[in-house]
């Protein structure tokens, strides 16, 4: 395995998690370098999503440690992880169709003004900030006052990613961000992911699309049957090698 000399934002050591008899994760160890796009690949049921859920605070590992920026963390819920700067982009789940783009961007992080406990929404400030967030990040800019219901799939994903990236987050986790998108929209979301990295965010990308992994990522980790079986620098591997690692036709 190639030694990685950059600073680690996430360091997963020997993490295990079982649901009853099902060993979802078995002694998984891997690292995410700061400022890089790290891809996590593997067949369905390999444990990718479970691992991601451990990192984002949804599941608690039963064994092993997860360190964030060098110190071990024990997230009790996603809110804990979010406070540390770990944001997750869910697959279409996390947007409210009947709210506007700016309301979604600021959902549960609304700006308010007022005196003491009597606080009112600072709608103007939120709209302006949303405008800035969307125009600096998104490639295909949706109008912040339009309802999410009226956006295309790509625009929705852009809003989700904007929200994840917008609040001084350090690590953005994306679970299949382009699974439901067309070719052009996928290209735009990919641009957006690269832009996130260029802006200094670390990205953890789960994807079934190998050419996408090869295009975007700096590092690839391969999972199979609940274990992390291999890690490669993207520049030093090939799609064929990754596929053979996933299927197990090639060991490490």
């Amino acid at each position, binding site marked *: 395995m190639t030694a990685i000399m950059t600073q680690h934002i996430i360091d997963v050591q020997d993490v295990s998690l079982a649901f009853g008899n099902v060993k979802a994760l078995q002694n998984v160890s891997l690292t995410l370098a700061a400022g890089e796009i790290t891809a996590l690949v593997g067949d369905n049921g390999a444990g990718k999503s479970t691992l991601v859920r451990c990192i984002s605070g949804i599941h608690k590992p039963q064994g092993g440690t997860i360190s964030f920026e060098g110190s071990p963390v024990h997230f009790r819920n*996603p*809110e804990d992880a*979010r406070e540390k700067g770990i944001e997750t982009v*869910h697959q279409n*789940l*996390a*947007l*409210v*169709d*009947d*709210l506007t783009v700016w*309301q979604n961007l600021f*959902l*549960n*992080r*609304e700006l*308010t003004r007022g005196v003491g406990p009597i*606080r*009112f*929404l600072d*709608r103007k400030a939120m709209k302006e900030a949303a405008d800035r967030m969307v125009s600096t990040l998104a490639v*295909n*800019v*949706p*109008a912040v*006052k*339009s309802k999410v219901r*009226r956006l295309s799939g790509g*625009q929705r994903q852009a809003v989700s990613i904007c929200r994840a990236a917008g609040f001084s987050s350090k690590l953005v986790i994306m679970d299949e961000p382009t699974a439901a998108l067309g070719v052009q929209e996928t290209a735009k979301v990919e641009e957006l992911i690269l832009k996130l990295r260029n802006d200094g965010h670390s990205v953890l990308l789960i994807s079934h699309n190998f050419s996408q992994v090869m295009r975007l990522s700096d590092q690839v980790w391969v999972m199979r049957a609940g274990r992390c079986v291999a890690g490669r620098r993207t520049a030093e591997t090939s799609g064929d090698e990754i596929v053979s690692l996933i299927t197990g036709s090639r060991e490490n």
Partner: protein
Amino acid sequence: MSSISHNPPAQARTTPPTANAPENPRPKTASRSGAWHEDLKRISFWADHAAIIGLILLVAVFTALNPVFLTVGNIQSILIAASILIVLTIGQAFVILSDGIDLSVASTMTLGVIAFGIAYAQGAGLMVSMISAVVASTLVGVLNGVLIAKGKITDFIVTLGSLSVASGLALVLSDGKPTSITSVELINFSTHGIVIFGFPFIVAALLAVLAHVVLFRTRFGTHLFATGGSKEAAQATGISTARIKIAVYTISGVLAGIAAILLIARVGASEPAANTTFLLNSVAAVVLGGVSLTGGRGSVFGPIVGALLLTVLTNGLTLMNVSQFYQPLAVGVVVILAALLSRFQK
């Protein structure tokens, strides 16, 4: 109607082409000034404004049929008659916006009425009696909310149960007998007002403004819309949808308590009546007001216009000496028509 559908040629020329900006909503100026007559041709416009259009239509029809209808005195009595329903409707709107339904709202009010009567009969002052009413109703609301949010039981079932529990309690506590409440203050309250607005209506209007501010100008309001629109999305952003649920049922309970006070002021007695019409009309008013029954979309003022419409309907039919038996029939037809029309909402 024919004059509306004509398209003035000058307007057509000055309207800017909107095809250049397909991703962005139309410029404000175009939808504000130039295209209002275009709006009239779309069925979604009629669907979005069903309540207000229906209200204007009814007022026009009743005015044409009976000159008494549009007199100051009658308007005054419509507004007073509507105020109890408006207060209940605001609570129902909060609940339905959060993707719930409060079937217990009228029985909760009845329990508040009985709590008032008991306190008053014991010699407690007006203030203490009023507080008793609000506390009793609020307790039912809190219980509804906790059972739904923490017990994870469907809204419909919980409030169907508490409908029965609250009206049963009201009967037990009052022994099925009315208590007359002779309070000069309450009589003055229900018979006086400012200009044509009676005090009960002023109370309802103030509550409506407060409700509007809470819904559209506070974090709680946004979280309520998010909870009703998509519970999963709300939870994914860390919103406690359970807290929102408990809050909306509590609000509905508090408002039922206030409605109980208005009802006692109006009737002059504390009666363990079923008040079923209030329940049906509160749901009907919310639906008429364009609130989505699956939550997440709507306003406060829409349902209030809906409540006014239902009151005008009853008032107009009474003025025209139509038998009372026809009133539920008319309400039912109006509600079903509104629901049909709401299918065409944007």
